[in-house]
């Protein structure tokens, strides 16, 4: 086993870190306060740097880099701004990737290339008011009418919604079939008549990332925009989430790392009882535990990225990575607020934002409970 990053991976880390610190970090707190998505910064700049299609082959407009490079890029962005990290992760893993895995050549040319090149932003519409962890409970319908599909229904909690141009949407095509067998995947573009956006969610964290409802009212899309086979939708969604898990695990890792660094730097400066609090064993023990847990989570994330990129089975690995990284991010960021004390509770310091941001990583793209189901089922098969 080689535990060292390659020269390219190191260069990518350095580049994204430099960019994140110089351009993303300065406005992270303000964008969180204003609940403002800045597409020029949080997506267009990523496109200029070649990050929006990192893992896809050059023939589809991607950079042809590996999965670990993608994990590193999301981690470095999330270290300063979790909202920017999830913008990239949802775009690449949840929208571009299923098109890459299940799309026809024609669909890849038409939809994947602009996504990979960052001309278009992507989103993924699976969740509904009564279909969260129970994704098979999808109620949005797609009915065939000649050469078109007619979509009706509502999706909620959709990341990048409103700004994204391309949406991979799951809808029920067969009402008679058992639960998850009758679901199919579709590619829908913003501006299609009958496709509109509902309310924008007011969230606890990742407030700079837009989360909105998708509303389909007799929305007609060409037959050629079904993704994969009819009835294959649930399988597509699950495979998509397997990969998305790695993106969110990387986001959580980045949040945890940012929180740890903020806590260490503060502890070295803050004096109480004439001593920097970093000299107190109590604080040192806390920081040591935080750093150790982050390192353990990092190894899980990197190894699942390695498996995903090398054609190995990675469903269980990515579930473990997401579970570990998200719970670590929550613990570490909460502890960081504690270490910064009263100051940590104010918006003058970034740790309260990191704590608010961390919570969602335990919930979306498969709750921690679902991750435990995935792992437990695989163990006890």
């Amino acid at each position: 086993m080689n535990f060292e990053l390659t020269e390219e991976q190191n260069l990518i880390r350095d580049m994204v870190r430099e960019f994140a610190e110089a351009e993303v970090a300065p406005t992270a707190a303000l964008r969180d306060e204003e609940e403002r998505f800045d597409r020029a910064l949080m997506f267009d700049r990523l496109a200029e740097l070649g990050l929006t299609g990192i893992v896809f082959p050059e023939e589809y407009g991607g950079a042809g880099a590996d999965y670990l490079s993608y994990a590193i890029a999301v981690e470095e962005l999330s270290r300063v701004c979790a909202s920017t990290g999830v913008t990239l992760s949802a775009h690449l893993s949840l929208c571009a990737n299923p098109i890459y895995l299940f799309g026809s050549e024609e669909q890849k040319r038409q939809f994947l290339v602009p996504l990979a090149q960052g001309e278009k932003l992507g989103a993924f519409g699976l969740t509904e008011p009564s279909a969260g962890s129970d994704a098979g409970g999808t109620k949005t319908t797609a009915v065939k009418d000649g050469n078109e599909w007619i979509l009706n229904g509502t999706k909620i909690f959709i990341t990048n919604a409103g700004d994204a141009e391309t949406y991979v949407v799951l809808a029920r095509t067969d009402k008679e079939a058992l639960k998850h067998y009758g679901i199919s995947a579709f590619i829908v573009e913003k501006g299609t008549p009958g496709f509109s956006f509902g309310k924008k969610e007011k969230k606890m964290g990742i407030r700079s990332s837009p989360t909105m409802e998708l509303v389909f009212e007799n929305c007609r899309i060409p037959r050629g925009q079904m993704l994969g086979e009819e009835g294959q939708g649930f399988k597509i969604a699950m495979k998509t989430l397997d990969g998305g898990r790695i993106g969110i695990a990387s986001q959580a890792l980045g949040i945890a790392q940012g929180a740890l660094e903020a806590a260490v730097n503060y502890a070295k400066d803050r004096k109480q009882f004439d001593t920097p609090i970093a000299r107190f064993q109590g604080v040192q023990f806390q920081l040591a535990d935080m750093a150790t847990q982050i390192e353990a989570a990092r190894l899980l994330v990197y190894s699942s990225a390695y498996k995903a990129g090398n054609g190995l089975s990675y469903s269980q690995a990515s579930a473990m990575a997401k579970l570990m990284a998200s719970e670590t991010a929550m613990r570490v960021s909460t502890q960081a607020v504690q270490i910064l004390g009263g100051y940590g509770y104010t918006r003058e310091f970034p740790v309260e934002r990191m704590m608010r941001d961390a919570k969602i990583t335990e919930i979306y793209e498969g709750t921690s409970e679902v991750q435990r189901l995935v792992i437990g089922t695989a163990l006890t098969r």
Partner: protein
Amino acid sequence: MKILVCIKQVPDMESKFKIAGDGKWYDSADLVFRMNEYDEYAVEQAVRLKEQVGSADVTVLSIGGDRVKETMKKALAMGCDRGVHIADNQAWAKDPMVIAGIIAEYAGPESFSCIFTGMQSQDRGSAQTGVLLAEMLGLPCVTTIVDFSYSDGRFTVKRELEGGIKALVNVQGPAVFTCQLGLNTPRYPTLPNIMKAKKKELQSLPVEHLQKIALHQKTERLFFPEKKSGGLVLEGDAADLADRLITILKQKTAVLA
């Protein structure tokens, strides 16, 4: 057009430095290394010149152990076409005369139209290598450039002087330029360019064939500045203070003879 840019790998200046065991240089263990900041501007300017001219080739050169190749990769990812690594684990001990001599030995036969270096390195700070290189190659040299343009074989540059004044210099190529901070905005190596850098030629040449000049300087000792005691506050009337101050300056410092 053949362009050469010479870069040096230095430690991150935010690092906690320790003196090496023999007391003659800093300990390189546990340090994070990066491209000398002045050299980033040199690389950026070299790539911009290539983009302006179109049919141009940029060679990036660096002297040091294997570790410096990481930094050379960044230069390749920023747009240099090929790398020449001069393999030398003792580069850190060599003075600018020797370093310039090694580069001159390589560059002489290559007939570069334009050579860029950083104005100085962040660790040694001699600010001599570019100038010495130009001398050895018999080329004109303009140091500390903060502005650069090229047209039809002639370079027009601004060099930074004291007090915010700049000198406008017009020079016929081939020439050597040493780059000051702020000359341009160094680009991020984009991801596709990082991937392309993998395939670019990076040859390693042993230093033995290129080093013809013996060491001119030897570093005797490297140490942290000794902590001085606090300042001295003088009180009294102006005439008396002036006398006392002159005495102190004469006796305690090298300011007055």
